[in-house]
Structures are given as C-alpha cells and as structure tokens.
C-alpha cells in the first residue's frame, strides 16, 4: 500500500482546501480577537482590523464553500462524503480503536486508503458533519450578523441577535477544535509531513 501512489486530490480540491484553511485561520484569529477584545492584550488583533478582516474573509470563505459544494455536486468527490448508516458505529469504533491502540501495535489500518475511500470512516463522518452541518450553520449565522436586519428580534424571549451570535461562536469553537485535531491527525502518515505534502502535490 505504501508504495502505491494514488492521485487523491485534484487541483480544485487543493485550491479549495488551502484557501479554506487560510481563510478559516484568519477568521478564527479575528473572531477570538473580537470575542475577547481587550486593547491591552498585545496578542489580539485590533478590534477595527478584526471586524474588517472577519467580514471580508467570511464572505470569501462563503464563496469558496460554493466551490466545494459545486465541485462535490459535479465530480465524483461528492461520494467521499456519503455514508451508509448500517454498521456506521462499528466502523467508527474500529477506526477509533486503531488510532488509540492499533497504530501503536504497528497494526495495519482497518480501512486502507483507496481512490474510492479517500477517507477512513472516522474522517468521512467528521468531515461530512463539519462541511455539511457546521459550515452551513456558521455561514448562515455569520451572514445574518452581517445583515442583522434579517434576524428575528426576539426568540423565546431572548434577543435573536444574541442567539445567532452564540450559535456562531459555538460552531466556530467546535470547528476550531476540528482544525486542531485535523492538523494533528494529518501528522499520522508515512512521515509527519507526508499528508501535508499530499495536499500540495495531489499524490498520496
């Protein structure tokens, strides 16, 4: 398996991926700088700059997300995000056991990478959740805050803006956890950098 080279990531996916990564990191840093804004903290980006950057990058990320959606609609890449519910829990369990124990015992991965299965079941589940649930929510709530007049003023007696902002921050937080875990798991390859190199060259 290790010697067989697979072309897993076509150019459009790589462009989308790195654009998404760069924009997401800027959004994360500026989001934290606004949420915990403190003019005396030298590690935070200034509030004014954060607002502008967050707005611009938020719109850019939303447009880039369209590239992902259309790319998945019109190429075979979309299949990588589909899951059968039957036996899903077993597959997720097996992959988790491999990450937690099997890989330290030098066991072979239970779901080897192929052109049909670029992602193992755990990746498939997490990537699908992040891209088809997390991203739509964070984009919709972000757009709502960019145009607050479209937000319902009151929701169950609480400010609609507050609910939207809380949702945006919570999903942002969950996606930022995904980012950290994603970067870490990507170091688990033939070498620490091999997966990062794959996302640059396209070849695994």
């Amino acid at each position, binding site marked *: 398996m290790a010697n067989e080279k697979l072309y897993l990531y076509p150019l459009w996916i790589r462009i989308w991926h790195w654009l998404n990564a760069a924009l997401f990191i800027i959004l994360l840093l500026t989001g934290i700088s*606004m*949420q*915990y*804004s*403190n*003019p005396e903290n030298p590690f935070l980006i200034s*509030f*004014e700059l954060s*607002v502008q950057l967050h707005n611009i990058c938020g719109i850019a990320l939303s447009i880039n997300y369209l590239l992902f959606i259309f790319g998945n609609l019109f190429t075979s890449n979309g299949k990588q995000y589909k899951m059968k519910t039957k036996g899903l829990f077993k597959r997720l369990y097996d992959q988790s056991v491999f*990450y937690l124990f099997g*890989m*330290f015992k030098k066991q072979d991965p239970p779901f080897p990478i192929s052109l049909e299965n670029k992602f193992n079941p755990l990746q498939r589940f997490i990537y699908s959740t992040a891209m088809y649930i997390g991203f739509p929510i964070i984009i919709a709530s972000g757009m709502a805050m960019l145009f*607050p007049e479209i937000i319902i003023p009151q929701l169950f*007696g*609480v*400010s609609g*803006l*507050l609910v939207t*902002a*809380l949702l945006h921050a*919570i999903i942002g*937080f969950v996606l930022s*956890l995904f980012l*950290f*875990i994603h970067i*870490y798991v990507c170091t*688990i390859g033939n070498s620490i950098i091999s997966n990062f190199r794959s996302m640059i060259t396209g070849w695994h």
Partner: protein
Amino acid sequence: MKPSKLLLGCMCLLLSFSLYAQKEVNKNHSCLKCHAHRTYKYMNEDFGMEIKESMCSNRMIDTLAYQQSNHGMFKCTDCHSPEYETFPHSGNLRMELMYACNDCHAGDPEYAKFHFEAIEEAFYESMHYNRSPDAFTCWSCHNPHTYKTQARIGEKISETVSYDNNICLSCHADVSKYELLTERENINILKSHEWLPNQELHFKNVRCIECHTQLSDSLLVSHVVMPKDSAIRECTSCHSANSHLMASLYRYKSLESRKGSGFLNAVIINDSYVIGANRNKYLNILSVVIFGLVLIGIFTHTIFRIFKSK
C-alpha cells in the same frame, strides 16, 4: 348592616371615585380645549362673531403624552401664571420666566435619588450650556409637557435608546429648533458619523450620550455633554470586557434586573448583543475545559507515538 345599605354605600363610594377621576381629567380642560388642538375658536364679543384661528405649533400640547409624562398630574397653572385662566391672555404673560428643574426639585428628599443638584452642576460643565448659556435650559432637552424617566420605567433597553436619542434628534435633526439655540451651522449627523461601522445598527442600539457625555459614577445619566472632539471613537471602549456601556444605562438595568431575578448580567444578555462585551462566564470556562482536554489528548497521543516508535 342590611345588604341594601351596603349596596348603597358601595355605589356612593364608586360615584365619588368617578367624580374625582372626572375632575382630574378635567382639571386642565379650559386650557386644553384650545391648546390640545391645531385650531381654536373664540367669541369676538365686539363683532358678535365666532373666530377660528390656528394654534401655534410650539404652544400645542400632546395631551396623551402629557398625561403619561412625569408632570402629567399637574394643573397647567401650577407652573404657569393663574392669569392664563382669562382669555384673551395678557401679552405680558409671554415674558414669564419658566421654572427650571431645581426650582421645584432641589433639596427635596423625595427626589434625592435623582441627584438633581449634581445634574445641575454637570449641566453647567456641559458644552451645551457653555456654548449657549442664555438659551440652553433643562427644557431644551426635557420637554416638561412630555418628559418621562424612560430608563427607570422602560421595559426594554431599545425603547429607552430610542426615547433618549429622539431627545438629541429633536434639535440635531430639526433645523428650526437647532437655530433657536445657536448661531452655528447645523451638524449633519449622518455625515459626521460616517466613520462609524454599521452606523444604522449603532444609532438604533446605542444612545448618543454613551459616547458624547463624560462618564459619571454617581449619575445614571451624565449631563456633561462634551464637544465632539472629546467623544468616544474607540471601538473597544464598548466592545471589551470593561465595556463603557456597562457604566450607565446597562449598569442600571443590570442592577435592577439582578434585584428581580438574581441573575448577574441578565439584562445585557437578554436585551442586546455587543461583541466583546457579552461574555458568558460558564461558556468561557466550558470552552477552556474542552479545548484543554483536546490538547491533553493530542499531547498524550504524541507521547505514545514517540514512545512506541522506538
């Protein structure tokens, strides 16, 4: 007591209440029959004709607003000369001096919580008074016929914001009233606030005085209106944990809400969202804990990878 006597007693009591209420409503009738309308009629005895005239707009009283205002219980002649009860009014009456707030409220322990004396001192420091000491009075902002202490009675912060900002706009968006107070050229508020991001959102949700008055710890509303160069322009003055907004209206509402529900920060959480200022302690702790657990997980996994690869 016989039931018929009891019934009669109740009816008498009801009638007396009703008569009292009627009297209360009618106490200003002779004034408001003209001053509550755009036009008024009077009988010209000399010619035996009924004359209809238009009422000068600044002499008109919005009766509903007056009834709901802080001073709505007063008779017109409690503040205006009793000579107004005769018609036509004497020309000299136009020269009568109006009362200022402290003519009635100063030194009254019942009104101590409003700090009228401190307000007056602050007013004398304000840019408004110093630019037009003769023209600018309490009434320039607080119309005695309509004024109500909105922040203390208003349910929602947004209603108080709108009420208070309309006080500023009554001059700053109305050239005729603005010109009564100053010779300066009218300020175009939209233009002078062009630098403010989300201008409309800020105008709807923040009171002008939050940025244009000097902060005061003792007064609910600081009356030291500052020149425009001293107004707050830093986003982080409000958008930070130590938000400027929490110094006045939001502080008051928060304290009031805490009295009722015992939940700190209840108002700022329920009524508004100010990024950087709204912080939920529990969510912050939870996020730090979850993030810490993820880092510990990654760290432990890394240690095992290094250890097992040997």
